[in-house]
Structure formats: C-alpha cells, structure tokens
C-alpha cells in the first residue's frame, strides 16, 4: 500500500513492525520497479555527494557574488578553540549545514534535499549526530530515506519550493525532514518521528522567501543553520516524550494554506523582505550593476 500522508506512513511502519525508512525503501522498490540493492546504492551515492560537499565547505569556499562563504570555517574554528554556549553537537550541525549551502552558493556539487536552497539541513544534522550515535553506513543511508519519506508527503500535499510556498516550504520542510530522521536514528518510534516533524515545521510556519538579489545566498545559508538547530532541538523534544497538539498532517495543511496566501513579493521574487531593504537593494545593484547586452 502507498502512503499519502504521515498518518499512513506511521501506520504502515507500526503495522508491519518496520522502520519508517524501510517503508520508503519498499515503496520506492514497488512503484519504480527496482531492486533494494539498486535503490540503496543510488542513495549511497547521494550520501557521498553530501559528505564531499560538507568536507569542501569546511575547507572554505566563496561565492561569485562574494555574499557568502567562509562562515563554516569560522564556526569550526570556534568549536575547536572555544566552548560553544549551544553545545558542540548543535554547532557542529550548524557549521555543516552552512558548509553545504556555502558550497551550493559557490556553484559546487550538492544533493538537493529537497531543494538546492535548503540542501544544508539534512546533511548538516546527519553528519553532526553521526559523531554521537556512531551509526553504520546503512543507518546513514536510512536517515536519507526517512527524510525523503516525510519530504515526499509534503511535496505531494503541499509544496517544497520557496517560489511556491515561501521558505517555510523549503527550509521548513528540510528542517522537519531532518528532525524526523534524527529521531529514527536515535532509536525513537515512528510516532515520535512524526511528532518531531510536526514540532519542527510548526516553528518554521510563515517563514518567507526573500533572497537578496534573488540569489540563493542571503539569508538562505543562515536559514539552513537555523533549520539544522531547530531539527535537533525538536528531535530531542520528541524523544523526551513531548508531543505536538496539532497532528503532523494538519501542520502540513497549515503550511500549505499559509503559503497559498503569501504575497508573491515574499516568494522568491526578490521584491520584498530582506531583498527590499536598503542594504539588500544596494547589494543587488552592485552585483547586477554592470550593463549587459539588451535587445
């Protein structure tokens, strides 16, 4: 049976006594007529791309516009040389999310999760939590299937792009997907994954997409930092037994309705929010100031 929403996803996992990642793997095999080996190996390749992107970002990169780059290096230096107030694991996740999006902004290779602009949340948290939970390679691949299962529900019932539903649809979804996957890796139940997803997305509702100069840089890179930390905190809350008063699927429905009523100036057109600030506009004209051929 195919799942159409989170309630069905959790129900299948509970009924079959399998993990959420396994539900996604089996569905992928069924719907697209592929072997388990094939599906797992494709996801392993994506994992490798994520790992390489984080590594590259932590060495230090810079975008063509010069708006972003180098913050992941600053954060790693701070973690090793000082005692971060928010804790090593949390800040490690933040630095790795930032690293991924800095590589993306610098036209490096990334894996969209679910989009390029929100590509930092899932790998950022995965490679930070990894140091604490010591997962096997297979468990790391499963982390991506669990993330993907929730993203699949959001994409089919709402939206995952900033142009369609604002940043809540993009980084909001990515952050919530990561949160649900952290719970599974930490040994939580399918229901707890669903609670973590709901709590995370609730905290991202209403977030607008207002990129300076229309580029996937400011504030996108730092939004991924917020998304990664939000994911870990919500996962801890769910693992502690905290539940969301509004069920997961209803939170996704709320995100959809909010996105539908969001003005287009706040959906990736660079006409509102931070893009429309005096500094945002000044940066845009500096970047695009050079005249080019016009017809």
């Amino acid at each position, binding site marked *: 049976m195919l799942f159409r929403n989170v309630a069905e996803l959790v129900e299948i996992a509970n009924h079959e006594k399998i993990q959420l990642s396994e539900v996604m793997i089996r569905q992928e095999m069924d719907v697209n007529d592929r072997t388990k080996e094939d599906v797992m190996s494709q996801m392993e390749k*994506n994992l490798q791309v994520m790992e390489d992107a984080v590594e590259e970002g932590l060495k230090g990169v810079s975008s063509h516009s010069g708006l972003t780059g180098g913050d992941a290096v600053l954060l790693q230096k701070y973690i090793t040389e000082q005692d971060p107030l928010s804790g090593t694991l949390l800040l490690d996740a933040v630095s790795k999310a930032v690293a991924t999006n800095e590589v993306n902004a610098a036209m490096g*290779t990334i894996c969209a999760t679910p989009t390029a602009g929100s590509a930092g949340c899932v790998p950022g948290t995965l490679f930070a939590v990894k140091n604490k939970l010591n997962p096997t390679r297979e468990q790391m691949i499963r982390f991506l299937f669990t993330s993907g299962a929730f993203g*699949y529900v959001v994409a089919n019932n709402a939206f995952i792009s900033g142009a369609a539903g604002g940043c809540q649809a993009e980084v909001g979804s990515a952050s919530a997907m990561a949160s649900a996957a952290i719970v599974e890796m930490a040994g939580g139940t399918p229901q707890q994954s669903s609670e973590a997803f709901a709590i995370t997305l609730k905290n991202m509702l209403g977030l607008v997409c207002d990129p300076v100069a229309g580029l996937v840089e400011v504030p996108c890179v730092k939004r991924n930092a917020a998304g990664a930390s939000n994911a870990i905190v919500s996962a801890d809350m769910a693992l502690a037994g905290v539940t969301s008063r509004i069920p997961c699927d209803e939170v996704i429905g709320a995100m959809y309705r909010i996105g539908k009523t969001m003005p287009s100036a706040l959906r990736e057109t660079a006409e509102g929010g931070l893009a429309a600030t005096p500094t945002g506009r000044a940066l845009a004209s500096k970047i695009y100031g050079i005249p080019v051929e016009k*017809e």
Partner: protein
Amino acid sequence: MKFKSVFDIIGPVMIGPSSSHTAGAARIGKAARTLFGMDPTWAEVHLYGSFAKTYKGHGTDVAIVGGLLGFDTDDTRISSSLDIAKEKGWNVVFYQDEAATDHPNTTRIKIGNGKEDMELVGVSIGGGKVEITELNGFELHLSGNHPAILVMHNDRFGAIASVTQILARHEINIGRMEVSRKDLGKEALMIIEVDQNVEENIIQELEEADHILQIARIVD
C-alpha cells in the same frame, strides 16, 4: 501524486546554487543539445523574467552553455563551460529580453552550425524540473518528468502507427503523446512520453521506420 520517487526529494545531485535557475537551466540546454543531435558552433540565448534579472548570479548562463555542451546537472565542468565553449570556437551571445512570458524562468535558445539551426523555448518550473514549450515553431508540452522521444517525421499516414508499433513490440508503454505540425503534408513532430527509458537499439529501429526524419530522446 506529482512526486513519485524518493529521489525527487533527496536529489538531484547538482551544481549549485539554484535548482530552478541552475539545474533546470542546464537541463534545458542539454535538451537543446540532444534535440539538435550535434555540436553547434553558435548559440543565441534569450533570457526572460527572473532568468534575465538574476542569470549572472545564479550561473544560468554557464548552466545553459554547460547543457549545450552535453553536461548533466552534476557535472563540475559546468562552472567553466563558457571557457570550454570558447576553446571550441563557439560564438555564444546572451540577451536579456524584456518581453513578458507566461513563466518567469523562460529561455529561448537558438543554436546552429552553419548548415542547420534549431530554436527552442524552455521553461524551468521548479526543483530542477523543466518543460520545453516550443521547438522550431512547433508548440509542445514536453515535461522533464518522464523519459520521452521526439520524432520529426513527414506528415503522412502510417508514420505514427509505425512508431507506436515498434514501441509496443518492445513493451514500452506510452504515458502521453502529442502531434504538432505547421502545415498539412509537410514536416510534423511527435512527442511521446514513455514510462521507461527508450534504449539505443530501439531508437535505431525507429530511425529506420517509414517517414521518420529524425529522432531525439530525453532520458530520466
């Protein structure tokens, strides 16, 4: 269900920074290269809407040229595509076009090699997915979501049947199909979206069928 695979969510692997302005742009460029079937020596790329406003920052220009060179969305050579095109002696010109279009991320690409030329309009609809809406004056609706074959053929009876028979023999299911022509009895274009990739040997068989002029394919 719009999204059918977990790899629509965890993926694609791509060169940043934007799934619509970079990955989608590369896919449109690659579709143009695939449909042209050979290396062009010149390209005129018209950019509209958000593509026109932000193409430098997003690398939409390098992505389209990367696509024209045949690079996939995850090919790191995309970032040096303008230099590679220059080394090959290509003459590439970009135009910021102010004409209004239905979708903000639209490009019109004209390519040629002195003997033949081709013109298409592509739209990047989000998340790296694209749609080709015009090819050499033929209107079409080719989504990037499915493998497809585009068959240029003489507008004669039997042309469509000869193609679908071959596909049926290879147990390839057609998901969507459209036929477009400009004038009665001249050239026509068949667009066939299929459920699985059409392998090279089947393409060869199709090329030998009656009234078929040229075939291009889009793989998943």
